[in-house]
């Protein structure tokens, strides 16, 4: 083990987790537990006749036959809750806790000022407000549409999809509407590379398409012969990310676009890897017809432990009439004054809504602020540093990296080791591990994306963690982690007998 790794092991993370650990009789600080549950009887006449413990009764203004009998929930004071949630937060690793090189997830630092910007009271409006009364909100949306269009090289953008997969769904629905409109409704296949994100397959299936899986060539890129074989008059679209999940740029992208377009299909860009390209290349210029942006990745809006995100979709002019309704545009003015006004409108052949209202506004306003802060220079530099960081980190680790030249992420192979075990062991060295066992092209894959926000020092520490694990034996790996809030968790048991609420625990645990 290197000195650096020794330091890691003895480092601050150990202290942090131990502080968070609240152990009593071998238990963590429990759930909001049965001692906190209070039962309120509802709608009876106020008599607490059944003598239930801690029972309280709430007279309901509604008749008994419309109301429930009781409600049983935790009853805690504000200070108790503050401690409960503070303690929970101490048992979470976030990007503010340390490096988080989770491939394809683009875990970037989230600037703090965007939280303040999103919390502005004037930003909090009901979605049914009149357009004239929310010109500020509409202007932010309009300008974000415009920014994203420029960054992606797209002609029109919708902000409605509430996540990347929802953006994919819009892309697929727009493609379907476009083909239908052109009398090409028979197209029933979507082609997806084997290494693509799982959402691509699921989205195409949700859209009603047959999924045609596309193998990679020996270089890890789209196999053009296989693509030729997969394309037909039934092809609705090819879903592709570039650089792909191995971090490799699809150099033949123009030829790929031509092949897809030649059979009348559309080319879809999965924006998950856009962080590698800002200011260097644009999907629109490569021949993509429709794309989604993961603003919670590329534009540093917090992932929030699994959302909310936002997945705006950009399209070329031909597809703009099919975008979801409503979108925002500048209103026709008679040239009076120099302030623009903004209005909502429904695209002519719109597919309608993909969200009840207008998506995840709070995420969008953070993305707007991030882009406005960085501008051309900042965005371009972010990609440059992201790519430099990935290449530097790869040069410092002892695991094999079979495919290159890569951009913002690389896939190392754990070789004879189990990648999932390697990941658990890396937790002991105080860092979050990479994405594991995917893409399957690389055996025991460790898919690593440091992003631009890590310093050389941090990358060296990450490399030390990788390298410390390289020579460790299986027994050590299988026993890991032992320096975290919880030790290795039995996920099979969780799936075999699912217990998904505290109600389920009452029966099984007899707490």
């Amino acid at each position, binding site marked *: 083990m290197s000195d650096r790794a020794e330091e890691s092991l003895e480092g601050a993370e150990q202290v942090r987790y131990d502080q968070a650990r609240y152990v009593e009789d071998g238990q963590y600080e429990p*759930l909001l537990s049965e001692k906190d549950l209070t039962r309120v009887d509802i709608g009876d006449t106020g008599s607490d006749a059944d003598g239930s413990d801690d029972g309280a009764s709430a007279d309901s203004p509604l008749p008994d036959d419309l109301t*429930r009998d009781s409600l049983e929930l935790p009853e805690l004071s504000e200070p108790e809750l503050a401690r409960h*949630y503070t303690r929970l937060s101490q048992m979470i690793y976030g990007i503010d806790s340390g490096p988080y090189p989770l491939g394809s997830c683009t875990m970037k630092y989230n600037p703090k000022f965007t939280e303040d910007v999103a919390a502005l009271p004037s930003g909090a409006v009901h979605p049914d407000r009149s357009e004239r009364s929310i010109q500020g909100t509409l202007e932010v949306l309009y300008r974000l549409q415009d920014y994203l269009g420029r960054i992606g090289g797209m002609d029109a953008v919708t902000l409605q999809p509430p996540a990347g*997969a929802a953006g994919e769904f819009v892309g697929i629905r727009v493609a379907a509407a476009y083909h239908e409109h052109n009398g090409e409704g028979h197209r029933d296949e979507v082609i997806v590379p084997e290494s693509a994100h799982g*959402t691509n397959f699921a989205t195409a299936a949700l859209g009603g398409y047959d999924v045609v899986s596309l193998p990679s060539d020996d270089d890890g890129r789209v196999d053009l012969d296989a693509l030729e074989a997969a394309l037909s008059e039934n092809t609705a679209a090819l879903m592709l990310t570039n650089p792909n999940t191995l971090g490799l740029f699809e150099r033949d992208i123009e030829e790929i676009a031509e092949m897809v377009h030649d059979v009348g299909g559309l080319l879809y860009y999965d924006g998950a890897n856009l962080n590698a390209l800002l200011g260097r290349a644009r999907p629109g210029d490569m021949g993509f017809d429709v794309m989604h942006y993961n603003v919670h990745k590329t534009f540093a809006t917090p992932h929030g432990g699994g959302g909310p995100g936002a997945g705006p979709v950009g399209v070329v002019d031909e597809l703009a009439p099919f975008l979801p309704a409503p979108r925002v545009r500048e209103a026709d003015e008679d040239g009076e004054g120099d302030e623009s006004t903004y209005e909502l409108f429904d695209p002519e052949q719109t597919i309608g809504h993909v969200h009840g209202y207008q998506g995840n506004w709070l995420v969008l306003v953070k993305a707007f602020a991030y882009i406005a802060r960085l501008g051309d220079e900042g965005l371009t530099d972010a990609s440059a540093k992201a790519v430099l960081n990935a290449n530097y980190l790869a040069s410092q680790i002892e695991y094999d990296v079979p495919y290159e030249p890569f951009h913002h992420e690389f896939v190392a192979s754990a070789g004879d080791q189990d990648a999932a075990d390697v990941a658990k062991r890396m937790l002991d060295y105080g860092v979050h591990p990479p994405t594991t066992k995917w893409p399957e092209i690389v055996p025991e894959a460790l898919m690593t994306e440091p992003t631009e926000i890590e*310093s050389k020092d941090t990358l060296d520490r990450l490399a030390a963690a990788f390298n410390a694990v390289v020579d460790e034996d299986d027994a050590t790996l299988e026993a890991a982690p032992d320096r975290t809030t919880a030790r290795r968790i039995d996920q099979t048991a969780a799936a075999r007998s699912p217990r998904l609420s505290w109600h389920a625990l009452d029966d099984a645990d007899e707490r």
Partner: protein
Amino acid sequence: MDGSHATGSPYAPHTDAEQSAMLEAVGVDSEAELFDIPETVRFDGEFDIASRSEQETRRLVRSTLAQNDDLTELLGRGHYGYYVPSLVDHLADRSEFLTSYTQYQPEVSQGFLQALFEFQSLLVELTGLEIANCSMYDAATALGEAATLAERVRSTSGHRVLVPDQLLEGRRSTLENYVAGTDLAVEAYATADGTVDVGALEEQVDDEVVMVYAENPTIRGTIEERLESIGSLAGEVDALFVLGSDPVALSVLKRPADVGADVVIGDASVLGLPTSYGMGLGLFACREEYLRQVPGRLVGVSEDATDRRAFTLTLQTREQHIRRERATSNICTNQAWVALRTAMHAASLGPNGMVDLANRGVTRATDLANRIDEIPGVDAPIHDRHHIREFVARTDQPANVLAADLEDRGFAVHVVGDHEIQLCVAGVSDDQLDSFAAALEEVAR
């Protein structure tokens, strides 16, 4: 580079010396050499987006949003502006919550997993159903997911999905998009006096129906009184009975499980989120028998290597990252942080607070309706039903004229018919309601 980041990303920490050392280690002279992009698709232009300081950016956003009018919103229809306690903002904004990813490494995610488990537990208690996932995007997308669930569990026959004719356009349209790739067809059934016309529904229900959707409370703020009958109609043809609701209403209304609901969907963000231009939190609870077909993420209990209780994402073989095109849903990123906020808000209210909040929605809506009914030119409520939070009023004036006049006086209301406005008391103070009644009196005649 002087450290001030006049150019370049302000969040990339590299010094010139470090950058040189890293380039040397990689074996190139410049970052540009690392980009393996054919010249023909290289972008050499500008986005024409200025770089700004943090201070300038804040000013830009603040001044832009300041163009919004400051109105008192008597708006509801599924999205409610309940006051969210400061506790929620301060705790949810702790950066461990805000800056973590999906809990793929549960050993360092116990806190978030427990919070989501508690959220699931909240929904199980509110609905009476056995399981709940830890979030969908919003009510509309959750409704779409319910329909695709119905198709999977009823795949042997039928293709009709029945929804009320007063369903919100955003929900109906989203549902249509979700079922576009299936054989399902969405049909409306009639409502009368703001609630389900059970007789009309009965006419439409046959063996081809796989799902019947109803809402309680309805979008017009009325309480549905014949849920058991609707549930029975669905049950007789083995269709899923899907009920739309929300956590505040569910605190007092009859438990969905007790009226035969198989699935409950809705927007849980009525707790935890202020009005946020329609951002939501889809709730999804269902009977245990659909466990393996449920969309979305589930947090379960397990044990760690030292036999201590631990939480983990579970049953991931339903999910897109494992099952790909055979997944139960394409959802990946969901609304976890909003679910956290909702659980926090609910916990801060406690059961008494939840019930009080719901009951006040009943009494205050009734009070406002009675009060403005006295105003010449307004009849309220128009539906002879129990109401919660909101109600529809008939106006002598054209509703859109009245709404515009009210807006000029600082109040936002829904226009729901030529001579119908809808008013909601959630999140509106008594003083504001006094002012509103005075303003309405001025403009209603």
